[in-house]
Every structure is written in structure tokens, then in C-alpha cells.
């Protein structure tokens, strides 16, 4: 075989390998993301969360939410405390979001970046869908104990354009996530901690802390409790049901 023909063959094989390896690499990132989601919560579930906003002087404000989710993109969150927020409910169906305020008596369309509570958390943090539903893995790098995923929002309606997620290799759970705007500005960093057994095989972080360069010296925490698998009728995720979500709690 002539030498130049051999090198052409080498190039062709290399290209073929690259063309196979490229998607496989992307697939791995997305597969890791799916595993992260599976480890973080069941497909359909209910859970309670406590949001704590801490100001630089140590002043705290706490909110408790009851959340139910079914399928890939149906989610409701109901505020059960403090009294000033009690009965407020937010509904997400895909990219559509609504806010129900008891006194107003009807749901209003809202956007993902609006804040329901004030502070660092916004609607998309409260009504976050599975990561693999909102984001696609663009690249993946590997360290001794972790994967680093660069994730890109699948649509422009997602609150953060891209994420840098660190995933612990052993537990396949996220440890920290940096959230960036389209401009490349870092909006906030999320830190997961305190892995806990929620029962039914669900072992996941029970604390999420958020810090933001836009709110220096302010901290926000989200504590999780009673995360458990539960099936709900699709009719629960409708505007007419928003005033009745509290009936789902046992």
C-alpha cells in the first residue's frame, strides 16, 4: 500500500472515531444529567421545602412550601407559611407559569425570573424542572472525584442560559452549580450539602445554599423534607385547581 494512501486511511479512521466519540461524549454528559435527576427526585413526587433568606445583619426570613410534580413539566408550589404568604400558589406547565394569590382570587401569568418571595430565589428556582429537561450537556470534563458538566438551556425561556455543574462521581449527585446569564455574567452559585436518606431508596442532599454576586453578603438556603414518590392526576396542574392545592396535603 502506498504511504500516502495509508495516511488517508488513518485520517479516515480517525475521523470515523471522532465522529463516533463526539456524540458519545455528549450522550455521556446528558446521561450523567439524567442520573443526577433520577437520584435527586422521583418522576412524580411531593415534598416540602423551607426557604431561608439571610441578610448581612443576620436578619432571617423563612418561607415553607409544599410542592407536587408529575411528568416532565407539571409542577405546583404552595406557600404554607409565613401567614403573609399562606395560600399563594405557583403553577408551571412547560414554559407557562402562573401565580395565584388568595385575595386576588385568580391566577396571573408570571415569568420565570420574577421573584415570588423577594430575596435571591426566583420562580424558576422554586418551580425548577429536572435538569435534563431544561438543559443539555455541551461538554464534560472529568476529575478524580467529580464530573464537571457545562450545560446549555434548551430554550430561551429557561431562567439561566448556562450552568456549570459539579457532580460527585461516587454518589452521582450535584455538589455545586454556577448559573450564568446569556451575557456570561455569573448570577448565582448553588451549593448542595447534607446528604440524607428520605426513604424509599432516595438518598440526596437536604440543603441547598445559594449565593449571588448580585446580592453580596446575602445568603439563601433551601431545606428539603418529606421528599416522597406520589402520583397525581393531571387535573391537579390546572388553573382551576390552584385554589385547592392545600387539599392534597395529608
Amino acid at each position, binding site marked *: 500500500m502506498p504511504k500516502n494512501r495509508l495516511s488517508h486511511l488513518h485520517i479516515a479512521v480517525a475521523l470515523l472515531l471522532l465522529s463516533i466519540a463526539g456524540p458519545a461524549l455528549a450522550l455521556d454528559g446528558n446521561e450523567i444529567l439524567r442520573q443526577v435527576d433520577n437520584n435527586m427526585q422521583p418522576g412524580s413526587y411531593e415534598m416540602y421545602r423551607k426557604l431561608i433568606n439571610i441578610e448581612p445583619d443576620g436578619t432571617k426570613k423563612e418561607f415553607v412550601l409544599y410542592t407536587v410534580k408529575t411528568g416532565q413539566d407539571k409542577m405546583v408550589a404552595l406557600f404554607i407559611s409565613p401567614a403573609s404568604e399562606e395560600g399563594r400558589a405557583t403553577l408551571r406547565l412547560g414554559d407557562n407559569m402562573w401565580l395565584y394569590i388568595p385575595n386576588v*382570587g385568580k391566577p396571573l401569568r408570571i415569568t420565570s425570573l420574577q421573584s415570588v418571595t423577594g430575596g435571591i430565589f426566583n420562580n424558576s428556582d422554586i418551580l425548577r424542572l429536572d435538569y435534563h429537561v431544561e438543559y443539555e450537556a455541551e461538554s464534560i470534563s472529568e476529575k478524580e472525584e467529580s464530573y464537571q458538566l457545562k450545560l446549555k438551556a434548551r430554550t430561551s425561556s429557561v431562567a439561566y442560559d448556562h450552568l456549570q455543574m459539579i457532580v460527585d462521581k461516587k454518589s452521582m449527585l450535584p455538589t455545586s452549580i454556577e448559573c450564568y446569564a446569556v451575557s456570561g455574567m455569573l448570577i448565582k452559585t448553588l451549593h448542595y450539602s447534607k446528604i440524607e436518606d428520605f426513604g424509599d431508596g432516595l438518598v440526596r442532599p437536604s440543603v441547598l445554599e445559594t449565593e449571588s454576586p448580585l*446580592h453580596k453578603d446575602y*445568603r439563601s438556603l433551601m431545606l428539603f423534607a418529606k421528599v416522597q414518590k406520589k402520583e397525581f392526576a393531571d387535573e391537579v396542574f*390546572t388553573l382551576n385547581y390552584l385554589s385547592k392545592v392545600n387539599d392534597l396535603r395529608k
Partner: protein
Amino acid sequence: MTYANKSSPWRRIQSGPCIALFLSCLALFFPHLCAAEEFSFDLEEIEKKDLQMGGYLEIRGEHMDLNQGSVFSTLNLADPDEAIVDLLTAAMQLDGSYARGISSLNWQLKAAAQEDTSGWSDMADVYSAYFSLKADPSLSLALGKKSYKWGKGYAWNPVGFINRSKDPNNPEEALEGYITAETDFIKSYQGPLQTAALTLAVLPVWEDINEDFGVSDNVNLAAKLYLLYLDTDIDLIFLGGDSRSDRFGLDFSTNLAPHFEIHGEAAYIPELEKIILEEDNSSSRVEDPAFSTLLGIRYLSANDITTIVEYYYNGGGYSQEEMSRFYQLAAAGLAQDPVLDTTLLDKAREMSLKGYGRPQPGRQYLYSKWTMKEPFDILYFTPGITALVNLEDQSYSISPEGVYNGLTNWEFRLRFSLINGGKATEYGEKGNSNKVELRIRYFF
């Protein structure tokens, strides 16, 4: 569930000065690692109780500079020479429910007492009190007094055929309901039509029951069909019965972009009864078709400013000519010597009560509200400004305000309203020319 528990790795570490120093350094450099230790999430906090009670206590102080010589200060005030009014109001709203299985009893009560320069007044009312049954998520029944807020508009709802009228300056306040029997069916689908929901409300008007709704001894039916179709909320609304003339409505709301929402309403009333003032100062009852529309947007800018703008065409309102005739009648009444003859002023008072004195009695309005979330890093502080313009006579009210709710369960609102317009215009003839209001609410 307490995070500072015995199984916590931090608790397993024995105390000692070196360890304390190590932990302090760790907390200083890695605050998020230690954060969870300071907080707890007890299951008691999320326990659901059969009986749930809540509400708020409110205290509100208002100072108004009166618009001396204006039509409505003359018609409504006992002493037309009064220059200012100071009001102090204490109010309480009680919300509650008692749930047992699939049934529940729900209520909302409101009471208020007011002291002003002319004396004391108070009120207590049942805003809602109804029994409901929820067999499953797709079907519910309710019987009793219930408040309805149909329509997509923020400031106005021309399709809100069984709503109480809301105050565009306080559109988020609770409103009194009507006694109804209601069923609600919900069905979800896969595909472009995601949800269909039908609400039927039977609203009787009998002696002592819903008497202020319309003509007595009638049973009315209100229906709303809600559709979520292609990510757009659509309501088809109907009111039939003899207490009010038949009404047909349509509303919609959708997001054109993630931060840009558009909504609208259209209402058609084939025979709307209206009392009008004739040129000879007599009044007559007319029935005309009325078509009302509302078109609005809600936009969230990159710097967290929320803008709501709504245009409202009130087909059942009075034209500028009809309003001018009313203001002329009142002005003529004012010119009369009140000792000798009050005929014209009495007629103006009568017409004011029959429609000319109601909020937004004209045809075309513009509402806009801008609020900015937490400017200058002041958490929980929301300044805003609301403008309400009568587009036909160019009169307006502008209300800057600041709302602070940084203290758990407290809300503080300071608002100033400037009310302005020329002679014989809606806001130019209001009873007051400005108002300062401080409202403090404590939620429990």
C-alpha cells in the same frame, strides 16, 4: 427534622478550643459548609390541621386635601367649606377553613372601623362562607357565598359578569361574594388543548339574597369555559337570567416572550340598561347594546421593572358629552342659593347615585403601573407608581408608593395620590385633590 442532630458530623466532633478555632476558620472561609447547622426544618411546621385560621389586622391613616368647589366635594360632603379630611381606619380580615375528608367549610370575614373629622363609622361583613365537596381533582361542588374574579384584566374586568367591581387603585383587595351553587369540572388532555374546565354558578336573587345583584325573584346562570390551548389561556363567559340582561364574554392571556405577557377581554351586552341625563335635566332609562374591551400587557425588564399597561373601552359608560351635561347640572346647582332652591343640586345628587358618580363612569381609560423589585439592594422593598387616565377628558390620578415587607408577616405601604384635571373632567371634579396614605398590615 432537625439538621443540628446527633448524627451530624459536626456534633460528633468533641468540643475543645482547637476544634472551636478550626470550626470558626472553616465557617469564615466556607460559610456554606456550616450553614445547615444553624437551621432546622421541623415536621411540626408542615403538619396540616383540619381547622386553619388566618388573616390580617390593618391600621390605615389617610390625609386628604379636599378639592373645594368641585362637583363631588359639593355633592358628597356635609360641610362644603371643609379643606382637609383626616381618616384613621382599623380593619381586620379573618380567613379560615375546616376540612374533613372531601368536604370543607371556608370563610372570609371583614370588619372595619373608621374615625374621621365628621365622626365614627364601622362595618362588618361576610365576604365569603361556603361549603365545598371535592370528590376528586376533576370535580368540585360549592354552595354558599363566594367571591368571583373572572377575567384577565388587572385593573378592570369587563367580562366579570358576577364579580364585584374592584378599585383599580387597589385591585388585589378581597371583594365580597354572592350566594351561589357552583360546580367545577376540569379535564386535562395531551396535545394542543391541554386543559378544559367548565365552571357553572347558579346565582339566585330573592329577598335578602343577592338583592344588590339585580331584579329580584330570578335565578341566574353564569358559565365559564376555560381552555388552555397552544399555551394560551382562553375563557368563554356567559351570564343569563332576568336579574340582569344577558351577557357574553371572551378573554385571553398568553406569553409572547418569556418576559412579555399580553391579555385581553371583550364583553357584549345586547341590551344594557342605563339611566341618562337629558338636555332638559330630566332623566330617562335607555337600553342599548354595549361592547366593552380591554387590552393589556405585563412586561418584566432586565432591571426588574414590572410594567402593567391596560387600555379599557367601557361601552356601557357615559360619553364625554353625557358627563359634561352632568357636570353642568351640578355647576348650575352650585350657583343656586341653597336656602332658596336646591332642585338642581338634588337632581345632580340623584344622577350621581344612579351612575354618574360611580368609579370610572366614562368610556376610555388607560391604566399603567410600574414596580421595581428591590432597587439599590434593598431587599423586600418595592417602589412603584400607578397612573390612571381618563383618555376622553385627559384628567388623571398619579400614585407613587413604596411597599416594604421585610419583617415577617408585616407589610408597610406609603402612598401619595395626586388627582388632577380641568373643570368638568372626571378627576378634576373629584372630592379630593390629593391623598397621603400609610397602611400597616400584620398577618397572622
